[in-house]
C-alpha cells in the first residue's frame, strides 16, 4: 500500500492518500488559485500559498507568525515576544 500511495503536502503537513485523490486535491488547489508543484513519478504534490494571500498579509503590516525549533528541538513562537521590540534576522551557513 505504501508504495502505491501519493503524498500531498498541504500547509506544511504531509498526508498519504490514494493517487487519484492526490491528483484531485492538487487540481482543486490549483483551481482555487494556489501554486501547486506536482511530481507524478515521485507521487507527491506540494500545495503552496497564493501570492495574493501572502501579499495581503504583508500589506496589513501584522508580522506573520511562525513556530520553529531551536537546535535542541524546543519550539519558539514569534508572537510570544509580543510586548517587546523584535529584530528578526534570517541568515544561513551558505
Amino acid at each position, binding site marked *: 500500500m505504501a508504495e502505491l500511495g501519493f*503524498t500531498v*503536502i498541504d500547509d*506544511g503537513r*504531509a498526508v498519504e492518500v490514494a493517487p487519484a485523490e492526490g491528483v484531485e486535491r492538487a487540481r482543486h488547489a490549483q483551481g482555487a488559485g494556489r*501554486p*501547486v*508543484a*506536482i*511530481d507524478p*513519478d*515521485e507521487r*507527491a*504534490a*506540494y*500545495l*503552496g*500559498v*497564493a*501570492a495574493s494571500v*501572502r*501579499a495581503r*498579509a*504583508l*500589506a496589513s*503590516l*501584522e*508580522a*506573520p*507568525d*511562525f513556530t*520553529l*525549533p*531551536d*537546535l535542541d528541538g524546543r519550539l*519558539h513562537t*514569534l*508572537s510570544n*515576544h*509580543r*510586548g*517587546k*521590540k*523584535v*529584530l*528578526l*534576522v*534570517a*541568515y*544561513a*551557513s*551558505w
Partner: protein
Amino acid sequence: MWQATHEELRGFGFTIVTVALDKSPEAARPWIEAAKPAHPSLIDTRHVVADLYNMVNVPTIVWIDARGRIVRPNDVAFGTDTFKHITGLEAAKHLGALRAWVRGEAAPLSEGRTRELQALPTETHQQARAEFGLGQWLFEHGRAEAAARHFERAGELAPHDFTIRRGTMPMRGIDPMGPEFREMLGAWTKAGNPYYRPLPE
C-alpha cells in the same frame, strides 16, 4: 553575529530572533555554537519564514514593534563587519538606526512608507516556492535526484531568489561558495541585477 547587539539592547524591551535557512540543524550548528546566543536561534529547513515574509536572500532583517507590527520591512544588514570586504555593507549604519528605535529616540518608518518599501510576492514566485517545498520534502525523504529537479525549476521561476538558487546548492551537492555560485553571481550582476537589495533609507 548578533549576540552583542542583543546583549546591548535587551534591557530596553527588545529581543533578537534569528532564523537559519539551512538544509538541516547540523548545517547551522557550528554557527550557533560559536555565537552562543542568549536570544532564540531557530532552524527553518523548509523556509517557512522566507515564504511568509517574501525573503529572497540572506541576511534579511525585519523590525517588528511591541504590538507585533512590521515597522521596517525586509532589509539587508549584518551584525558585524566580518563580511564587509565581500559585501561592501557596513554594520554600523543599521545598528545605529536600530539602537535609536529600540531606545525610543527615533520613530521607525511610517506605515505608508513601510508599505511602499515592501516587496510583495508574485504568482510566479509562489510557484517557485511550491517547487522548492516539494523539492525540500523529497530531499528530506532521501530522494535527492528528484529534489534537485524541483530546486532547479524553482530557481528558473525565481532567478532573483537566492534562498532558492544558492540555498539549495548544498542539497544538490554543489558548494555554495564554489565556482558554480561565483558563475551564477557573475551572470546575475553582469546583467545589471543586485545581489543585495538594501532599502534606500
